[in-house]
C-alpha cells in the first residue's frame, strides 16, 4: 500500500488523530497511561526486588497485622502483614497490564476471528456460534467468570483465563454486526469479482472498516477487566497472599478501613494508595476509549 500523503486511508487516519487529540480527555488519558507504562517498565529500577526469582512477591518485614504509617523505609507505609505498599503499587502496575493485555488480546483475537468468519460466511457455523453466545449472554460477566475460576481453582492466572473465556462473546457480537453490513457493499462484491480470495477480502477489505468499534471496546475493556479481576482478587479468588496485585492490597486493607475510635482515618493509606492506582489506571483507559468513540462515531465525526 502506498503510504504517500494523499492516500485516502492515511488522510483519514491523520484526521482521526487530529480529532482524538483535539479532545482534552484523550490527552489526560494518554498522559496517565504513559505514566503507568513508564512505571511498569521501570519497576525493577523504581522498586528493586528483594527476591530475584519472584519479583512479584511483595517484601515484608514481620507479620504484624497492624499497618504502619509512611516512614523513610516504606515511603507509602506498610499494609496488613507488613507488606510494603510502595513496592506493591509499583509491581501491581505490571500485574494490571498483564491482566488487561492478556484478556483483551485473547478475547479480541478469538472474538474477531470467530465473528469475522461467522459474519462473512453465515450458515450453520454462524447459527451455532450465535446460539452459544445467546446462552453465555444470559449470565453476567462477573458471575460466569466466578464460576470458571471456582472450577479451575483460585489464582491470578485462572482469573485471566476465565475473563478471556467470558469476554470474547462481546467481540464476536460487535465485529459480526459490522461485517453483516459490510459484506454486501459494492467494494466487497467488486473484490470478489476480481477473484480476490476470501481471506484477503476479510483481512484487507472488511476488517479495516469494521475495526473501530472493536478498538473502542478493547480500550474500555482494558479498564473494566482490571476492575473485575481486582474484585475477584478482593473476594479471595486471586493470587496467593503477598502477590503484588492492587485488588489483593485492597483486600488486605479491608479490616483497617475504620481505625480506632479517636482516629478513624488512621489507616487511610492502606486503601487509598492501591485504590487510587486502580481508579487512575481504569480512568486512563476509559478516557482514551471515550475519545476514540467521539472520534470514530460516524454520526458525530464531521460535525
Amino acid at each position, binding site marked *: 500500500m502506498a503510504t504517500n500523503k494523499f492516500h485516502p486511508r492515511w488522510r483519514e487516519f491523520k484526521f482521526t488523530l487530529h480529532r482524538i487529540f483535539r479532545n482534552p480527555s484523550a490527552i489526560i488519558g494518554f498522559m496517565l497511561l504513559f505514566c503507568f507504562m513508564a512505571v511498569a517498565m521501570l519497576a525493577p529500577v523504581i522498586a528493586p526486588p528483594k527476591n530475584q526469582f519472584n519479583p512479584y512477591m511483595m517484601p515484608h518485614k514481620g507479620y504484624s497485622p497492624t499497618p504502619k504509617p509512611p516512614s523513610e523505609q516504606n515511603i507509602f507505609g506498610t499494609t496488613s502483614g507488613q507488606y510494603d505498599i510502595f513496592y506493591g503499587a509499583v509491581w501491581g502496575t505490571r500485574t494490571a497490564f498483564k491482566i488487561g493485555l492478556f484478556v483483551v488480546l485473547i478475547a479480541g483475537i478469538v472474538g474477531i476471528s470467530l465473528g469475522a468468519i461467522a459474519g462473512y460466511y453465515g450458515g450453520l457455523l454462524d447459527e451455532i456460534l450465535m446460539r452459544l453466545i445467546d446462552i453465555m449472554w444470559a*449470565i453476567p460477566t462477573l458471575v460466569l467468570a466466578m464460576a470458571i475460576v471456582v472450577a479451575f481453582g483460585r489464582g491470578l492466572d485462572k482469573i485471566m483465563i476465565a475473563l478471556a473465556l467470558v469476554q470474547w462473546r462481546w467481540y464476536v457480537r460487535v465485529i459480526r454486526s459490522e461485517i453483516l453490513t459490510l459484506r454486501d457493499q459494492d467494494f466487497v462484491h467488486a473484490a470478489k469479482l476480481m477473484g480476490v480470495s476470501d481471506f484477503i477480502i476479510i483481512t484487507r477489505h472488511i476488517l479495516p472498516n469494521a475495526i473501530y468499534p472493536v478498538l473502542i471496546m478493547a480500550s474500555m475493556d482494558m479498564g473494566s477487566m482490571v*476492575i473485575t479481576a481486582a474484585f475477584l482478587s478482593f473476594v479471595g479468588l486471586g493470587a496467593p497472599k503477598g502477590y503484588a496485585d492492587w485488588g489483593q492490597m485492597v483486600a488486605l486493607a479491608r479490616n483497617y478501613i475504620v481505625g480506632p475510635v479517636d482516629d478513624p482515618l488512621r489507616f*487511610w493509606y492502606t486503601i487509598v494508595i492501591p485504590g487510587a492506582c486502580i481508579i487512575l489506571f481504569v480512568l486512563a483507559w476509559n478516557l482514551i476509549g471515550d475519545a476514540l468513540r467521539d472520534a470514530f462515531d460516524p454520526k458525530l465525526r464531521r460535525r
Partner: protein
Amino acid sequence: MLPFIIRRFFFLIFVLFGVSVLIFGILMTFSPERRAAAYVTTPQQAKDIPKIIKQFGLDDPFYHQYFRWIKEVAKGNLGWSLVAARPVGEAFWRYFPVTLEMNLFAAPIVIFFGIWLGSVSGIHRDTWVDHSTRIFAIIGWSLPTFLFALILLMVFYGYFQAFSPGVLSDELTLFIIDNPDKFTPYTGMYTIDGILNGRLDIALDGLHHLVLPIITYVIVVVALNMRVMRSGIIEELSKDYVLTARAKGADNKTVNFKHARRNALLPVVTVAGQLVALSMEGSVSVEVVYNRHGIGWWLAESATQLDMPVLMCICLFMGVVFVITNLILDIMYAVIDPRIRLN
C-alpha cells in the same frame, strides 16, 4: 404479540437448558473426590469418600449426572447450601428479598437521574455543563464498585459515624428475633415489612442502611444510561424535524423535551438489558462490602467455599431474570416505537 411471547418462552427454555449445561459442564471439571467433599459434613465421613462417589454416582458420564440433577431440580430439590446451612431453595428466598429491596430503590434513581443528566449534557453539548457531566460519568464508570463502597464506608461509617454496614441495627435485629409474634416478615424487606407491621422505626432504619449502597450503586451504574441518552439527544437534535420545529417557531423547551427527548429515549430502552446485567454485578460487590446478606453476598461466599449447588442455582436464576427482562423490554420497545413490529 402472542406468537412472539410464545416464541420467547421457548427461547427461555433453550437458554435455561444451555445455561445449566454450561455451568454444569464447568463445574464437572472438578475431580469426583472434590465434588464428593461437598457431601461430607463430619470428619468420620471423610474416610468414606469413595463410598460417597459411588452412592451419588459422581464418576458417571456427564449426561447421566446431568439428567440425574435435572430430575432432582424438577422435583424441587436444588441441593444443599454449605454457606447457608439449609437447602438451596429455602436459602434463596431468604436472601432474595435483600437484593430485591436494594434494586427496587436504586433502579428508579438510576433511570431518571441518568436520563436527566444525559439530556442536560446533550442539549448543552460542548459547554461546561456537558464537560462536567461527562467527566462525572467517566469517573463514576471508572470507579470499581467495591472500592468506592469501601471508601464511602471509610468516610461515612468511620469518620462521620453516620451510616453503618448491614441491613438493620443490632437492637432492632435482636428485637425481631426475640419477638417473632410482634413482627411478621411478609416480604423479607425490612423497609416494607416495617410499614406493614406498623413499626416505622424499623422501616426507617432499613432505609437508613440502604443509603450508602444506593449511592454507590447509582454513581457507578448511571454512566451507561447517561452516555446513551446524551448521544441520542445529540443525534435527534441534528435531525430535520427538529429544524422544522424550530423554523416554525417552537420554543427551545418544546423542541428539546417534547420532540428530541422522547425520540432519544428509544436507545435507552435498548441498553436497559445491559443495565440489568450491570446491576446484578453491582449487587455482588455492594453486598460483599456492606455485608448485606443477599444473593450477591451468597454468590461470593459460595464461590470462595466451593458451594457448587448455589453457583448453579444463582446462574439459572440470572438466566431467568435476563430472558424475562429482555422479553419485557422488547414488548415495551414495540409499545413505545410504533415503527417496530414484533415478528
